[in-house]
């Protein structure tokens, strides 16, 4: 765009006409020039500050959507197509070998949604103290696997690593807070991005010219993918910030409005008050899980509400309660919960399992929207979420690269060190993670699932590879050179993942389809799609595109290529 000084603009003004001038033509701008500039800067600075963190959140989040399926993808012994083992059959051998410690909690999570296995957790006496017993149990075969305390669920850490990376849980509590703050500023980037593109929204919506110069193609990709994913991005910004910052959100309200009574606030979520269940020290026999299920209100048994978790607080005590959580299949706002007396299965309190309190409905809807738990639409919704998450990750990376490109001086040797650093860091973190993830998946398939130290090797595969690739991005001759080979490698390895899944995991696509392992099939086909797109992108970074765009001195172009004007829309 031509930039003129004030005197130049004045000189270009048409001479004053003696006739009254017609009404000034409206510029069509919905945001004035000054707010436009301020919002543009806000959008770009916010994007740069949170960009790489946001990329990791979305890229890992795309896989975290398939958290349950990834367990079964990694460990064939957890695959099940139907639930044949009852909860009582699940716990019986464990309780026989390791009796539950008196008056402690016993939790059994049922197979539901994408999970095809039970998860059992309780404490057993050991000398003068107790120790935890944890296990996952295949819902079809009953085969069980111990989960050592402090380790992720299952024999492979793959699923949990990506899930925890999604909100930086590896960095502990503050990692989650940082993820929440990134989500808040992502909302700011979305709002400011919409405001600055408002005038051209209809045109920008479908202007994508991949054969133009790389900078134009990147700018198009950034805008088009950003617009397509706009509702999704806004939803994720709000729900992600809500889930990550819930403690900060609710703490002031609990302190002031509820005078510090967190139980009262929680009661608003589930529309109930938890009965007193302090252990009395008087022993009482517990009933079976089947007894508890049979004692639930009739609304739980008509197929619209499934039991998801039963926790028996104070197992074996006269005052024990069975705290039962459910999932309503026909609504995303319900938070079904019922509490029974542990020794008699008498119903103590229950909420409306298909209804919702305002706060409970809000929290449930936000959680279910975030995790794509949308009843019968969930499988399709997850595929859509997966694609949009990858698209949003691409929007973030292209935004970072564009930030560097548009600030490149005419003489690339004058490119500021900070910009060079940012270009290489973007390539290392972005392309590095895209390559490290298939390395992790291949490691999981190539190493025996029962190998000692598998989880350690999986951590090395992801974080070790990623770290090495970040260093490689700084060590190579150019940032774009590093981006190119890393994308090539990521594409090829992504295409190998489904093959490894077939050879070592016995889950070729046709086998997965015939067994109804839709989650596994989706993951493998997703890698095929990613492999093709990554190789296409790597090929797109061809030398002539580099010469005119982002190569030259190593990180910048010899001659900055202007963004091609977008075609007019009739």
């Amino acid at each position, binding site marked *: 765009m031509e930039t003129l000084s004030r005197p130049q603009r004045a000189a270009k003004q048409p001479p004053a006409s003696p006739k009254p001038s017609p009404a000034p033509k409206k510029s069509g701008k919905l945001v004035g020039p000054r707010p436009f500039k301020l919002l543009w*800067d*806000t959008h770009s600075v916010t994007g740069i500050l949170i960009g790489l963190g946001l990329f990791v959140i979305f890229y890992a989040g795309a896989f975290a959507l398939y958290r349950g399926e990834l367990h079964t993808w990694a460990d064939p012994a957890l695959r099940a197509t139907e639930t044949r083992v009852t909860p009582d059959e699940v716990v019986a051998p464990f309780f026989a070998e390791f009796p539950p410690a008196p008056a402690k909690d016993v939790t059994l999570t049922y197979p539901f949604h994408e999970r095809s296995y039970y998860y059992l957790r309780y404490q057993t006496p050991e000398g003068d103290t107790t120790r935890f017993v944890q296990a996952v149990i295949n819902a079809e075969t009953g085969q069980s696997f111990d989960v050592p305390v402090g380790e992720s669920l299952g024999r492979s850490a793959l699923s949990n690593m990506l899930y925890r990376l999604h909100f930086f849980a590896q960095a502990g509590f503050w990692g989650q807070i940082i993820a929440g703050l990134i989500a*808040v500023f992502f909302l700011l980037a979305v709002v400011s991005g919409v405001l600055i593109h408002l005038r051209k929204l209809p045109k920008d919506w479908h202007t994508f010219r991949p054969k133009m110069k790389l900078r134009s193609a990147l700018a198009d990709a950034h805008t088009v993918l950003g617009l397509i994913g706009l509702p999704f991005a806004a939803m994720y910004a709000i729900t992600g*910030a809500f889930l990550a910052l*819930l403690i900060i959100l609710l703490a002031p309200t609990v302190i*002031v*409005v509820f005078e510090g009574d967190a139980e009262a606030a929680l009661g608003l979520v589930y529309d109930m008050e938890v009965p007193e269940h302090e252990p009395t020290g008087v022993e009482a026999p517990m009933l079976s899980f089947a007894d508890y299920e049979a004692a639930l209100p009739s609304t739980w048994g008509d197929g619209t509400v499934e039991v998801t978790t039963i926790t028996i607080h104070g197992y074996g005590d006269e005052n024990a309660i069975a705290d039962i959580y459910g999932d309503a299949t026909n609504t995303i706002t319900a938070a079904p919960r019922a509490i029974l007396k542990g020794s008699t299965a008498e119903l103590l309190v229950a909420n409306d399992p298909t209804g919702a309190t*305002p706060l409970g409905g809000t929290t449930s809807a936000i959680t279910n929207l975030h995790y794509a738990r949308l009843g019968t639409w969930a499988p399709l919704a997850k595929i859509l979420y997966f694609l949009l998450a990858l698209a949003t990750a691409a929007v973030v990376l292209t935004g970072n690269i564009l930030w560097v490109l548009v600030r490149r001086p005419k003489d690339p040797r004058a490119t500021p060190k900070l910009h060079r650093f940012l270009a290489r860091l973007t390539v290392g973190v972005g392309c590095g993670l895209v390559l490290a993830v298939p390395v992790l998946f291949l490691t999981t398939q190539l190493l025996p699932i029962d190998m000692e130290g598998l989880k350690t090797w999986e951590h090395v595969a992801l974080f070790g590879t990623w770290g090495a690739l970040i260093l490689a991005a700084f060590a190579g001759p150019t940032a774009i050179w590093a981006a190119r080979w890393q994308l090539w490698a990521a594409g090829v390895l992504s295409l190998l993942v489904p093959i490894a899944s077939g050879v070592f995991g016995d889950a070729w696509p046709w086998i997965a389809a015939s067994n109804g392992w839709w989650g596994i099939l989706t993951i493998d086909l997703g890698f095929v799609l990613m492999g093709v797109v990554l190789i296409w992108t790597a090929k797109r970074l061809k030398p002539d595109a580099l010469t005119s765009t982002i190569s030259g001195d190593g990180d910048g172009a010899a001659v900055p290529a202007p963004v091609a004007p977008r075609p007019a829309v009739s």
Partner: protein
Amino acid sequence: MKHDWTRGEAWGKATAAFFGGLVGFILFGLAVGTVLPDLGIPIGVAVAISVVVSMPVWTGFVVWAVLAPSGRGAWLRVGGTSLVLAGITAIAYFI
């Protein structure tokens, strides 16, 4: 940068947007949580509104601060609104 930022404007607006916005976001949640029940709206509805709306409100504070004429103007906007929200919360809480 498209706007001609001075150091004072940049720091003033950035701090007002982040810290002032954070305080405003908390006070907005408290104001909604205390005032709406006094108007006969159930406490559960009030808290639900506060937790959902607070986040976009924080974003609104940030945008409003950035669009202020100066860094000082940003603090006046965000700080002034926060004071009003604190006053409303205090009145609803104590009276």
